[in-house]
């Protein structure tokens, strides 16, 4: 691998990783407050992508939109994905998980419910939206904007990375600085005592799902913008992002960001070194290695940690 190739793939890896990081946050947030691996989060991601597709089909950007119109289309698509992602996650909590919580169901039941919800949602999407992958309508004329260490970065990649970073910074501020964030951390550490402080646990859990859902939904849009929209698109990125959350230390938000970027780089670097077919394998190898030597994940220590 030449140095130039190294830079090319590193830039690509960081960008893909930023997407994994945003999805991983959704897993880690929910795990924090419920100790639940929300396997249906991959479907939140998928439905977010459909949200942007539906909005774009409604407004149908024609050929060669002006720069201003392009920004508008991107904003609308993003809003559509955020709405779909947020509503799906909210609904999941309300319909699937809350009744189990009321009855004090064992962990395993939550997990099976999550897997069931995932099956239900992606089959429903296949039925509603058709089973053929669809590209997002073009919102702007994609071209290389600048180069980073000689690696060309185009608008789509820039949009993806910038959005992911903005979302991560916003989330970090929300969790560390706001009252809701403090409530989320308190519920993650000790829900019962958080209740004694006046934290409405149901409300905090519901909002946590919405936040994770919005992030996951927008990630779905960004992913679809690079690839295509399909009802099965959630599975692989979902599992990979889940691995990233575990690598970083599940429950730890900055850990999820770190794990996402790490897995993104490893996966992408695998392509020139071993070939494209080894991508997902290498991500899982990282997961296994981390679990062997640091079972609590790289940044370890779960429980409502922001830092």
């Amino acid at each position: 691998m030449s140095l130039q190739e190294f830079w090319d793939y590193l830039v690509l890896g960081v960008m893909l990783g930023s997407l994994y990081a945003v999805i991983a946050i959704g897993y880690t947030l929910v795990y924090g407050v419920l100790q639940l691996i929300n396997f249906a989060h991959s479907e939140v991601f998928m439905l977010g992508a459909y949200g942007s597709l539906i909005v774009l089909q409604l407004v149908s950007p024609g050929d060669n939109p002006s720069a201003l119109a392009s920004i508008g289309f991107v904003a609308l698509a993003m809003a559509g994905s955020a709405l779909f992602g947020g509503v799906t996650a909210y609904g999941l909590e309300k319909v699937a998980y809350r009744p189990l919580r009321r009855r004090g169901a064992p962990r395993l039941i939550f997990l099976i419910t999550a897997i069931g919800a995932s099956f239900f949602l992606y089959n429903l999407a296949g039925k509603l939206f058709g089973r053929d992958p669809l590209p997002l309508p073009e919102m702007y004329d994609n071209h290389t904007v600048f180069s980073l260490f000689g690696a060309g970065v185009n608008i789509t990649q820039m949009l993806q990375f910038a959005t992911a970073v903005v979302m991560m910074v916003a989330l970090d501020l929300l969790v560390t600085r706001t009252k809701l964030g403090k409530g989320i951390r308190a519920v993650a550490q000790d829900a019962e005592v958080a209740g004694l402080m006046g934290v409405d646990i149901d409300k905090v859990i519901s909002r946590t799902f919405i936040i994770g859902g919005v992030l996951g939904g927008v990630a779905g849009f960004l992913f679809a913008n690079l690839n295509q929209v399909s009802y099965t698109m959630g599975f692989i990125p979902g599992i990979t992002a889940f691995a990233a959350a575990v690598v970083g230390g599940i429950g730890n938000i900055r850990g999820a960001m770190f794990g996402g970027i790490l897995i993104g780089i490893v996966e992408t670097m695998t392509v020139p070194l071993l070939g494209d077919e080894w991508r997902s394998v290498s991500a899982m190898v990282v997961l296994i290695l981390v679990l062997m030597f640091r079972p609590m994940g790289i940044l370890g220590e779960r429980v409502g940690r922001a830092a």
Partner: protein
Amino acid sequence: MSTTTELQKDAGTAGTSEETLLELKSMRVFYGAIEAIKGIDLTVRKGEIVALLGGNGAGKTTTLRTVSGMLQPRHGEVLLRGERIDGIKSHELVRFGIGHVPEGRRVFSTMTVRENLEMGAYRFSSVDMAEMDRVFTLFPRLAERRAQQAGTLSGGEQQMLAIGRALMGKPELLLLDEPSMGLAPLIVQQIFEIIEEINKQGTTVLLVEQNATQALGLANRGYVLETGEVAMSGPAADLLADNRIRAAYLGEGAA
């Protein structure tokens, strides 16, 4: 129970009024099919310190948890200022002026001291800085460590933080569950002095303790629970003088 005695003279202790703040009326609490509290009556008057004593499994903690809404009674009533509060969830009950310092302190260990105190004021739209200053005056150690993570504090400091956190919610009734547990005698002494000070500043206290001598030394009145029932109750001085109490809880052999 045949050993049940009423030592009910009038507790005409200074600083307390006749106004009832908390009242439990034949309250029964179950864990599944197991009856943990078998119908107890208990009164806490405004301004008092009331000690709730008894051995392990007597139902002390269960009683406190029921008062603060973490558990619901299956029968009977919980009244605060004459108003029914059973059935209300704990996060809503804080607004009624109940503060609960749980057993084992349970501070938010990865939050700083300051953040823990802010959590205590969660029910208010903003944190009352004057209240925080008052907590820091009561516990100068916490002021020194305000930026430190709560998990790095010593046991005594964590207990202080747990009490300070409850005070941030400006409770009228403070429920304290075994504040002396696992602490060195000198620290226990400090904690009890602070509880007395908090009470003097106008907060009514319901104190659960295994450490009966110290609790009764502080309290106006006391209740002794045995397997979910009130075995004895009365002014603290009378309970301290009672032979059976001395035998059972103060570690004296005399029967």
